[in-house]
C-alpha cells in the first residue's frame, strides 16, 4: 500500500538524485490505482512538467508496466492495437519516465518523473527504485519472461 510516508521518501530521494545530476524536474507518486499521492516540482522546472509527470505515473500504475512499454500497444501486430488512436483517457502517455513500484508480487504504486530528456528521467526513476526498494530492475521478476512475437507463427 502506498502511503504519504513512502511517497515523501521517494520524492526526497528523487530530488537529491536530480540535484546530483544538476537537473530540475517534477516528481509524481501515485497509488496502485493511479491516484495522486504526492507531487513536487523543483524550483525552475517548467510548469507543464507537473502534468506530464502525473500522466507518466498514472500510465505506469494503470498498465503495471513502465510508461515507455505501453507504446507496444501502438504496434498493429499486437493485440492491444487501437489504444493510441482511441484517445479514451487524457492521462495516457507513452513517454518514458514512469515506472511501477513493486513490493514482492504486489503493486504498491508508481513514480513519474518529467523535466529532462526521457532517458535521464528513467535513470532518476531507476536510481530511486534501487535506493529505496532495492530493486535491480524496474520490472517484476515474474514478468521477465521473454515476450511472444506477434504476427508470425
Amino acid at each position: 500500500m502506498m502511503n504519504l510516508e513512502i511517497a515523501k521518501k521517494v520524492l526526497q530521494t528523487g530530488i537529491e538524485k536530480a540535484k546530483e545530476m544538476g537537473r530540475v524536474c517534477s516528481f509524481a507518486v501515485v497509488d496502485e490505482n493511479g491516484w495522486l499521492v504526492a507531487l513536487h516540482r523543483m524550483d525552475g522546472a517548467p510548469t507543464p512538467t507537473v502534468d506530464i509527470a502525473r500522466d507518466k505515473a498514472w500510465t505506469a500504475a494503470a498498465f503495471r508496466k513502465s510508461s515507455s512499454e505501453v507504446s507496444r500497444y501502438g504496434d498493429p501486430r499486437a493485440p492491444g492495437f487501437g489504444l493510441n488512436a482511441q484517445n479514451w483517457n487524457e492521462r495516457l502517455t507513452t513517454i518514458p519516465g514512469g515506472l511501477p513500484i513493486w513490493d514482492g508480487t504486489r503493486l504498491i504504486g508508481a513514480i513519474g518523473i518529467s523535466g529532462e530528456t526521457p532517458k535521464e528521467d528513467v535513470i532518476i526513476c531507476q536510481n530511486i527504485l534501487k535506493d529505496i526498494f532495492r530493486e535491480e530492475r524496474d520490472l517484476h521478476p515474474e514478468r521477465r519472461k521473454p515476450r511472444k512475437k506477434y504476427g508470425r507463427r
Partner: protein
Amino acid sequence: MKELTLELALKMLEAAERWARDIAGFQCSIAVVDKSGAVIAVHRMDGAGMATTDIAIEKAWTAVAFKMPTLMGSRWLDPRNIGKLIGDHAMGMIGRGKGRLCFIPGGIPVADEENEVIGAIGCSGVPSGVGDISDTTVSQAGITALYE
C-alpha cells in the same frame, strides 16, 4: 520572500498536515501553487479520498487567480441570492476557467511583504461545519508556518 520555493511550500504543507492530523483529526489533501497557478507541491494524507487532490489544486488555483480566498467567492454561488433584484450571485462562474474554477472554501492566497500575491494554498477533504475545523483553517495553519 519574493517567490514561493519548493522549500517554503513543503514547510507550509508540513504545518498544515500536522494541524489536520493532530488537531482537526481528519485526513485531507493539501496543494501549494505559485503565482502563475502552477502546482509546486501536493500531498494526500493516508486515508484521504482520491478526488481530494484535484479539488485542492483547483481551490489553490482559484485563490491565486482571483487573489482572494475561495471562501469569499463561495458567497457568489449562494443560491439564496438568485432572483433578487440586486442579487449578489455569479452563477456564470460555474464551468469557467476551463473547469479549474472551484469556489468551495479552502483556498487562500499567500502574500509577501509588499502585499503581492506570490502563490496560494488549497486544502480539501475536511468536512466543514464542525466548529473551527474546516478546509479553510487547515490552509490557514499552512500560511501561519510562513511567518514563524
